[in-house]
């Protein structure tokens, strides 16, 4: 009897933690000074933003905020590996991917600052909004991919979910549907090792999260999520496969959440400082900087100038956020339906009357 299936999960890495090339078969974009320094600059930029956002929360100028510290390579790699007419279904901290796609920092701040207009962002109008319930966005991306396939559009839907989210019904249902229908779908499982306080090894007995795609019939790849060359190459590979009708892919991007889950969390309650210290040795920005400097493509002067530019950019965005007036009170009713039903219109009028008293 000839039955049974074996599978292997490949691991993709180009740069190790010290910025040494471990895989000499570099993709073309990594051989190009402009492109690779561009990715580096994007990572620095999102870290500047993130640092500022946490500070805004600590000083009472922002609500609860989910930091992206340590995720820069995964987020910029995802954003830069997609085309603008593809659709991104993020969870809630992939600002780097969104900045690459045109979302403005002021919009991220508006959202976490308690204003729905942050979801009406300047990125592609078809991109999904942030998704807090965990994992549901994976099925929305699969639904988008089904729409693209039915309409014969050469577009791809990319969903982001965490290691915790890889346990959700919806995530696994999306993998299943993508395989069943052969959808142009890419699932990026951003494994940052922690689902608030629950570590990766408590989520599943599976050796990798990438292999969650095996049962659904998807291509699966594990990637060093701190190596932006590997992340971008993997995303470009998966998106290209999908666009050409070869089906969906699950990418596990292995990284580390260097910050708290959100500003409302205190990670010292559940993880050792030593683990975090070690994770800082593997973080994504440092290793690419080493590599770029080794190539003679980057130096401390360029770095200082760029960081000054980033800070000015972030400050201007923060000013724009802080200067944005609160929505008028009736805005809580104005987008519920295309046309407000009579009951909504009545309550809207009541609220307006209260305001005018």
């Amino acid at each position, binding site marked *: 009897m000839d039955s049974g299936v074996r599978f292997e999960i490949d691991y993709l890495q180009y740069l190790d933690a010290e910025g040494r090339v471990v895989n000499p078969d570099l993709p073309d974009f990594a051989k190009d000074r402009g492109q690779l320094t561009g990715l580096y600059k994007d990572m620095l930029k999102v870290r500047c933003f993130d640092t500022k956002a946490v500070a805004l929360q600590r000083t009472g100028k922002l609500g609860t905020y989910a930091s992206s510290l340590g995720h820069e390579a995964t987020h910029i790699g995802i954003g830069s590996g997609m085309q603008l007419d593809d659709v991104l279904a993020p969870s809630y901290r992939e600002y780097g991917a969104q900045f690459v796609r045109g979302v403005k920092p002021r919009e991220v701040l508006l959202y976490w600052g308690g204003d729905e207009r942050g979801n009406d962002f300047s990125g592609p*109008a078809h991109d999904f909004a942030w998704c807090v319930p965990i994992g549901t966005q994976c099925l929305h991306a699969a639904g988008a991919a089904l729409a693209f396939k039915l309409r014969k559009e050469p577009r791809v839907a990319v969903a982001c979910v965490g290691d915790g989210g890889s346990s959700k*019904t919806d995530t696994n249902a999306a993998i299943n549907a993508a395989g069943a229908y052969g959808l142009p779908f890419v699932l990026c499982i951003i494994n940052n090792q922690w689902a608030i306080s629950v570590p990766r090894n408590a989520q599943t007995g599976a050796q990798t999260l990438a292999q969650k795609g095996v049962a659904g019939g998807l291509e699966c790849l594990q990637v060093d999520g701190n190596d932006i060359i590997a992340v971008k190459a993997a995303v470009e590979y998966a998106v290209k496969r999908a666009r050409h009708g070869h089906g969906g892919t699950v990418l596990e991007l292995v990284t580390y959440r260097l910050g708290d889950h959100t500003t409302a969390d205190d990670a010292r309650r559940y993880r050792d400082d030593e683990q975090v210290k070690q994770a800082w040795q593997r973080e994504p920005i440092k290793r690419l900087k080493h590599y770029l400097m080794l190539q003679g493509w980057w130096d401390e002067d360029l770095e200082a100038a760029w960081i000054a530019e980033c800070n000015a950019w972030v400050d201007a965005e923060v000013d724009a956020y802080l200067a944005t007036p609160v929505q008028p009170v009736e805005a809580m009713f104005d*987008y519920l339906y295309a046309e407000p039903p009579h009951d909504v219109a009545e309550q809207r009028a009541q609220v307006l009357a209260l305001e005018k008293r």
Partner: protein
Amino acid sequence: MAAITLIEALTQAMAHELRTDANVLVLGEDVGVNGGVFRATSGLIQEFGPERIIDTPLDETTIAGLSVGLAAQGMKPIAEAQFDGFMYPMVDHIICHAARMRHRTRGRLSCPMVLRIPWGGGIRAPEHHSEANEAIFTNVPGLRVVMPSSPQRAYGLLLAAIRDPDPVVFFEPKRIYRQYKEEVPDDGEALPLDVCFVLRDGGDVTLVTWGAQVKETLEAADALAKEGISAEVIDVATLKPLDFDTIHESVKKTGRCVIVHEAPRTAGFGAEVAAQLAEKAMFDLVAPVERVTGYDTHIPLFRLEMKYLPSVDRIVTAAKRTLAVS
């Protein structure tokens, strides 16, 4: 024109919209070759093909989540839940996403989908096949909640639901899927999604109901008429938004109101009707509002289910209690 049943009217409405709008598609379990377990999609795959009449993997979460994604990207999915008792995994997607897609993106994205749910008891079905769970959705902003009670209204309301730019939860009273036939012209004429229908004029008591209980309520009105009592019967049809004005106009005339529904009593949608009567019609009422409902228990397995469902006798008795007050 041949007369058709309520479920055939639903099929007719879906086929009409599939023909006229290329973005409309149907998805669910067994909706393809099998035509749905109740046959609501019977014949559709033959006319429209498997790319528009889509069998899904056996997972309600998948049906709802895919529908949200399809709708947000320009399609108009009609999702079928196979039974009322199986739709609970869909609730997350309907409440957290479909109902607030437009709201939370300030109109950048929207979610024009219809979730069709065969609804209610009285068909001697197995466990989890007989739930009256409409009140789960009537408390959710951003949704419309609709339940037809005749072939003509099923056709017109489903057309409207499919054309609506926002998500609609469309409950189908399966007990009356094939109760009777009437002529339903396939004229593409939709009915409004914000009005109640007065099915029978009367001056002594107002009977308010929806879905399958329209049958018993009309029979109760017949029984009352034999005793010289004139009952007005209102089919709510669209629960959210509720057309309270039509109910109020009737109560101004009768001063009495009996609300009939199949769902459990506590916080059932009848409580909303009663609350609005208390707020807006207190001085038009001459008797306390009565509710004839399912009990606050799970619908029994079918040996006892008819004891649970509102009966003609219970409706008549409640109406007479309101008339005993003067």
